[in-house]
């Protein structure tokens, strides 16, 4: 395992932790973007340039901004959450999450021996990705396009203000 990997991984995990632990929601969102960036870097380390940059474009460019907008629109960053930022059942949640991590980690460790070892970087060009998208995966692509359109319209309608007078 390269040194860079551990650095980036640490960065990512730290970002994730901060995202769920910080008090101010905007800070959480920003921390989240750090996590996203870290993930993008991990993707790059995995020779998945396309996915990495798509990650940055979509998550940092769009999702993070969306979240921030939502935070501002719901005034969640101003209003101090009375009774702490954690729900009163936080312990149970924490236990469950920990349990999940334990199980997953266990699974990985268990099977660590059988996992494939360091292999040379697969030489995939964007051309190939494009061909795959337009070839074998064209149907999912179309469906995804449909879904995105639906989501766009749906989100717009859900978040729309019914002005007085209209229905």
């Amino acid at each position, binding site marked *: 395992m390269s040194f860079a990997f551990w650095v980036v991984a640490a960065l990512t995990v730290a970002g994730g932790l901060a995202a769920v632990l910080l008090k101010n929601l*905007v800070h959480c969102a920003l921390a989240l973007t750090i996590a996203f960036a870290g993930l993008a870097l991990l993707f790059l380390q995995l020779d998945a340039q396309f996915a990495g940059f798509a990650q*940055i*474009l979509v998550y*940092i460019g769009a999702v993070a901004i969306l979240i921030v907008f939502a935070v501002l629109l719901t005034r969640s960053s101003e209003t101090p959450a009375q009774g702490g930022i954690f729900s009163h059942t936080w312990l149970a949640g924490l236990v469950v999450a920990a349990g999940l991590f334990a199980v997953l980690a266990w699974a990985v460790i268990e099977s660590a021996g059988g996992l494939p070892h360091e292999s040379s970087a697969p030489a995939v060009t*964007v051309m190939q990705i494009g061909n795959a998208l337009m070839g074998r995966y064209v149907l999912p692509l179309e469906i995804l396009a449909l879904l995105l359109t639906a989501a766009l319209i749906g989100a717009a309608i859900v978040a729309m203000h019914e002005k007085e007078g209209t229905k």
Partner: protein
Amino acid sequence: MLERLDQVFVLFKDWLVAFLPASWQGVVGVIICVVAIIAVYPTLFALAVLMERKGLGRMQNRYGPNRVGPFGILQPVADGIKSLTKEDIVPLRADAVVHFLAPVVLVVAVFMGFAVLPMGRNMVLVDLDTSLLFFFAMMASTELSVFMAGWSSRNKYSLLGAMRAVAQMISYEVPLLLSSIVIVMMTGSLSLVRVVEAQNHFTGILPNWYVFTPWGFAGFIVFVIASTAETNRSPFDLPEGESEIIAGYFTEYSGFKFALFFLGEYVEMFAVAGLGTTLFLGGWAGPISFLSWVPSWIWFFAKVELWICFFIWIRGTLPRLRQDQLMNFAWKFVLPFTLFNLVVAAVWRFMGEGWLRWLVCWALVVGVYALAGRSGMRREKIGTRIYRYAD
């Protein structure tokens, strides 16, 4: 000789690197390039500011800066010194960390963009297979810094400005991307180097730049508009509309941070202009066949400067848009037009050689322009507008 002149920077780098042990050469080479970029563009930025101020002065029938140095040439230096020496004020209730990070993130993100711009033959830092995507990813992450700046200053003007800026950038990023997709469709590659190479040959003496094709031209127009908006230049400079919200998201910035923002803005301008040049105007390729002996990097920077001049000229000419006009324009005209441009490109691609496809595609483009203009930009009666940014 001329080849050497063309490759002068590359050769220089190699010469420098040659002093080092082989194991270091790669790293150091990259570092040199980075340093070069970081050195060149701020200089250009200083020139651009000077040019802008003087140019605007002329347009507005007054002398621009003319005190510092001969014809006020040293004005930018003076500005630099001033902003460096000024006190750096952070508002009391501001979120200090974010407030500090914002300009840094902006500048970093913007400079990242240059990593993939070919500024001359063999003059690209990294020739990524996905460089265009990378570029846009970087551009996208500038939005975040803008928001950080606006939000962290705890100032309603800043917040308004940030919101405006983000909304505007997101809305215009879509057409920006889509208009470049056309080029990708034609070149069959996301690599900017390929794009330039694809344009760098001539029919007769005329170059085959994409801007001269119907879809290319349409894409070019859209790209110019969208990039103007993306860089918050007038007439899309609502985010920093002095008359409405002081200086928008960097109202609360001063001193060096302010300078950084200023720098970031202009460098982003350069970056976008460089991208546009690469995509539509043949990058470092010469405009006429018998002029191709002129070093490639000269062409590139000439074109970029031309682009900047155009920006300045527009700023001196057009009034500022209104928010609703801005959005309507983005979603009702530019987006549909761009989307259809994709179709035109596809038609072009599959109609094969011949004069017919020129005819058809031009007709399509013009027709759609007229159609979208009529339907999308119909003038509604202007009633009372409600601004809801943070309701």
